[in-house]
């Protein structure tokens, strides 16, 4: 063998190239706090536990199946759903015709939170961020001419999981498909809802019972169905870094395992049916390492329960490219981002994948943008020849070293969770939420000061308004849904419905499997809202408590001058007005995504604002009352679920009614450009879209106040 230069020689050469700077000057600290060096060699693999494994065998670092994509490529599974069941059904069928392989249903927020379309709290939510489902009749239309014994369907549902899963089972039955033939996945991952997203209904304890009931029922009667999809995606979207995503997700998973074991199920009865769902961001190799590390860690953890079936230790996962990494500015760039994230997911060995549409930072995807998103995967799958080899990055010095670093760091967090008594207790303590929020706020600060590049947002900006078509869901949908609901309520046997609902309430009180008793109610055409209420009578509806962090944004932001200048502005305001500028950060409707509003709150407090935070899920009237009582100068509405066109005019009206017409209203979140003029005409003073830096927003708010 030739005598190649050693590492020392390389260092000499590198130092020369760097004009005398040490090689260490090229080290880079990732958001996870993992040090990445400019060069990895065989030395870095010495003593690593996770290398030299084979795909298909525990610990599955290189993939759960022996042949991976060489044998069968991943499932292209696009998450979609909007307006009515009929429209969503037509959309699904066209997608399947165009090469999509599995379905993934998005429900609207009203359904998630267990409200029927005619509930006064959901005026702005019906059919907006997903499809509206009130009864099994809607479900039947949703899956019309889609044979459920052949199609694997994934349903993102956590809060109202009982009526929806029961609805799916009944729909199949009425299609002539028995439950044991059903394949697919129900998300049924309630723990992460208390951390992010907030589409829970009941308090943690009864919610965990529901999860266990479903695992138990599925293990008995729907053996091919994934009874939980343990999801890290939403944590990532809320700002968790990759290590946090793995650690908290697996910790959630372990909590479900314990809940199922408490039911005296054998680990092999249900563990093979637990599936995962990870979010894939822009740090290309980190995301690959994350998926490999996740498989290693899960196999390691489950092995402690003594499974006999190797499938119990096998982590199978769905992935989705990050919605948060998409920009509203220069949106075609998002196609490239999504392609890279798609590659990460595939090189990391995912089992199924959703690729985002490029205009999702603006609104729901259109037919065109959905096609591009789907084709991104098809092109990688069918044109790039990537599928030919299993785990092509296995043995890469860097990827293997990074995989083991993620394992090491994630273990630390998982141990911390364990010390708190498991994930349910940890969530109660507020620890995970605090970690994720700190990570989100730091990241925002890094982006705002250009330490992390986002093309079109903080570098290479173009002076062009985003245009192009977007999909808008009409407010008429709600009326349509309500009319259908009325009709169904009239035509059903209401005695049978009430009897079935009482059975549910009793079962909630005295024990028994809740999914089992929900099925007859669904058959009798009880609504999602009615079933939810019959449980709520016993369980109550959960309200989250809010802990806030402060000082994090400013400590991660290095440009003192900018901070000092905005602080000077708020100080001057204080001198002039006798108090600090006061802003109410408000969430209306059933949109539970609170990352944006939380980051705004902590950053603005760091800038010297007095910040009020509204509870979640407020009506415009609630917000107006709070704004007036607290006498704020500004109401900042955070909106991510397309409810703004209904809710904001109502807020303006309610403010006027309360005598607060002088209060400035601004909006931040996902707002299509075409809606700006409408909002301005209603009196909104400023609209901030994703990508606006916190300091710029604060200065613009001050501009509005100084006028």
């Amino acid at each position, binding site marked *: 063998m030739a005598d190649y230069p050693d590492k020392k020689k390389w260092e000499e050469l590198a130092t020369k190239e760097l004009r005398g700077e040490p090689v260490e000057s090229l080290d880079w600290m990732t958001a996870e706090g993992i040090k990445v060096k400019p060069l990895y060699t065989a030395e870095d693999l010495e003593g690593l536990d996770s290398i030299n494994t084979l795909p298909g065998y525990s610990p599955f670092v290189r993939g759960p199946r022996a042949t991976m994509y060489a044998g069968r490529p991943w499932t292209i599974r696009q998450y979609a759903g909007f307006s009515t069941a009929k429209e969503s059904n037509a959309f699904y069928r066209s997608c399947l015709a165009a090469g999509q392989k599995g379905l993934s249903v998005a429900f609207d927020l009203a359904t998630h939170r267990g409200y029927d379309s005619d509930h006064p709290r959901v005026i702005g939510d019906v059919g907006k961020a997903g499809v509206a489902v009130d009864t099994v009749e809607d479900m039947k239309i949703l899956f019309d001419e889609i044979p459920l014994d052949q199609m694997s369907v994934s349903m993102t549902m956590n809060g109202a999981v009982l009526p929806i899963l029961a609805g799916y089972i009944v729909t199949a039955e009425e299609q002539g498909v028995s439950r044991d033939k059903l394949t697919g996945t129900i998300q049924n991952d309630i723990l992460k809802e208390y951390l992010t997203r907030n589409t829970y209904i009941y308090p943690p304890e009864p919610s965990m019972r529901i999860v266990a009931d479903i695992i138990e029922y599925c293990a008995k009667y729907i053996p091919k169905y994934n009874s939980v999809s343990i999801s890290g995606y939403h944590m990532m979207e809320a700002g968790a870094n990759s290590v946090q995503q793995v650690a908290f997700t697996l910790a959630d998973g372990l909590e479900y395992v314990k809940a199922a074991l408490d039911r005296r199920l054998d680990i092999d009865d249900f563990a093979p049916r637990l599936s995962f769902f990870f979010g894939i961001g822009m740090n290309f190799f980190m995301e690959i390492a994350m998926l490999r590390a996740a498989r290693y860690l899960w196999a390691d953890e489950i092995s402690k329960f003594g499974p006999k079936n190797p499938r119990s230790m096998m982590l199978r996962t769905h992935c989705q490219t990050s919605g948060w990494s998409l920009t509203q500015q220069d949106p075609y760039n998002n196609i490239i981002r999504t392609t890279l994230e798609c590659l990460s997911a595939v090189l990391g060995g995912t089992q199924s994948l959703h690729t985002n549409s490029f205009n999702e930072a603006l609104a729901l995807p259109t037919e065109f943008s959905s096609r591009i998103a789907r084709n991104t995967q098809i092109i990688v799958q069918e044109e790039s020849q990537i599928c030919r080899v299993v785990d092509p990055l296995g043995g890469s010095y860097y990827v293997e070293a990074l995989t083991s670093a993620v394992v090491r760091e994630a273990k630390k967090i998982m141990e911390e969770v364990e010390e708190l008594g498991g994930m349910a207790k940890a969530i109660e303590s507020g620890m995970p939420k605090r970690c994720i929020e700190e990570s989100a706020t730091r990241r925002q600060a890094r982006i705002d000061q250009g330490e992390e590049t986002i093309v079109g947002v903080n570098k290479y900006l173009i002076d062009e308004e985003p245009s192009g078509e977007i999909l808008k869901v009409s407010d008429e949908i709600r009326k349509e849904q309500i009319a259908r609901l009325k009709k169904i309520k009239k035509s059903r046997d209401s005695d049978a419905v009430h009897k079935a609902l009482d059975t549910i309430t009793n079962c909630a009180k005295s024990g028994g499997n809740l999914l089992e008793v929900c099925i007859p109610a669904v058959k009798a055409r009880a609504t999602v809202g009615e079933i939810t209420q019959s449980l709520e009578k016993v369980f109550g509806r959960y309200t989250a408590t809010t802990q806030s962090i402060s000082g994090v944004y400013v400590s991660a932001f290095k440009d003192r001058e900018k901070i000092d200048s905005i602080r000077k502005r708020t100080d001057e305001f204080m001198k002039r007005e006798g108090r600090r500028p006061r802003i109410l950060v408000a969430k209306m409707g059933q949109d539970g995504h609170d990352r944006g509003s939380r980051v705004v709150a902590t950053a603005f407090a760091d800038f010297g604002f007095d910040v009020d935070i509204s509870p*979640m899920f407020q009506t415009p009237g609630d917000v107006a009352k709070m704004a007036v009582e607290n006498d704020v100068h500004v109401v900042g509405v955070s909106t991510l679920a397309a409810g703004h066109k209904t809710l904001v005019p109502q807020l303006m009206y309610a403010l006027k009614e309360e005598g607060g017409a002088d209060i400035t209203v601004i909006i931040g979140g996902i707002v299509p450009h075409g809606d700006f003029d409408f909002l301005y005409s209603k009196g909104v003073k400023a609209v901030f879209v994703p990508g606006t830096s916190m300091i710029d927003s604060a200065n613009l708010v001050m501009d509005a106040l100084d006028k």
Partner: protein
Amino acid sequence: MKMNLDDPQYYVQGVLAKDRRILSKTITLIESSQPSHIELALDIVDRLLPYSGNAVRLGITGIPGVGKSTFIQSLGLYLIKKEHSVAVLAVDPSSARSGGSIMADKTRMEKLSSLKKAFIRPSPSGGTLGGVTRKTRETMIICEAAGFDVIIIETVGVGQSEISVAYIVDFFLLLMLAGIGDEMQGIKRGIIELADAIAINKADGENVQKSEKAQVVYERLLNLLSPSYAHWIPPVHVCSALEMKNIDKVWETVLQHRAKLNSSGELEEKRKKQALAWMWSLLEEGLKERFNRNTNVQGIIPEIADQVTAGTITPTAAAYKLLRLLDK
């Protein structure tokens, strides 16, 4: 009515008419540090003073995490059911560095805050002259004039502000938790002495027994302290704000206390004393502020302070010298 934002009558009439917007604006004036606002606010408070004094003034404190907001929500909901109207004044700490603050009180009082008969006003602690309690006391008066018959003052943490709040309310309730190591939970003995009752919160689920044990401990402790009133021994309750358990008992205690002190004349006496103590504390504060602003004093303080630390002059002589400058 035509709006004249400089006219005290505009605010006085608005508050008396129970106009939520004007009530809230008046509180802003009271909290303001701007001299013209302060003057206007003093005028308004004076004019509204005759309409105040009819409410139950309740102070609630306890360490962070004891469940103050949840307790206040449960009590508030209970009171509103009994036809009361409730004003909640909450003080949130401001950051010393940015001056800003985050006020998330209402996220923990969601149900109460949406009710018409409840008025909840969180206030940042920092940035205004005269301290938290000046503002809170005056705000309390305004809320009484606006017809609220129960005023709840919530303070966060445990320190000086709790002690002063105890001096502006009729009833001072201390919330505690069972089974958190140190029985005192960082609560200063002085605060326990001021408590008119202790409620051990979160007595739900696995915590019930622990709470009942803690109840005995606190009862014993309170017996050792010298009572503030001739006719009142502070009771200890076990409650769960989350489950709305024993909230009614706490309220009954407040009423019993009121009845006893009313009949003995101690309540009137207490309020009179509070008013006088109030004047003195404002005087002290004002004098101190005036002293600090005095141009004669300002120039010489650093020099004299240096002399004191260097030991070339005694603290007594230094203070005497500085005070004499005020007479010039």
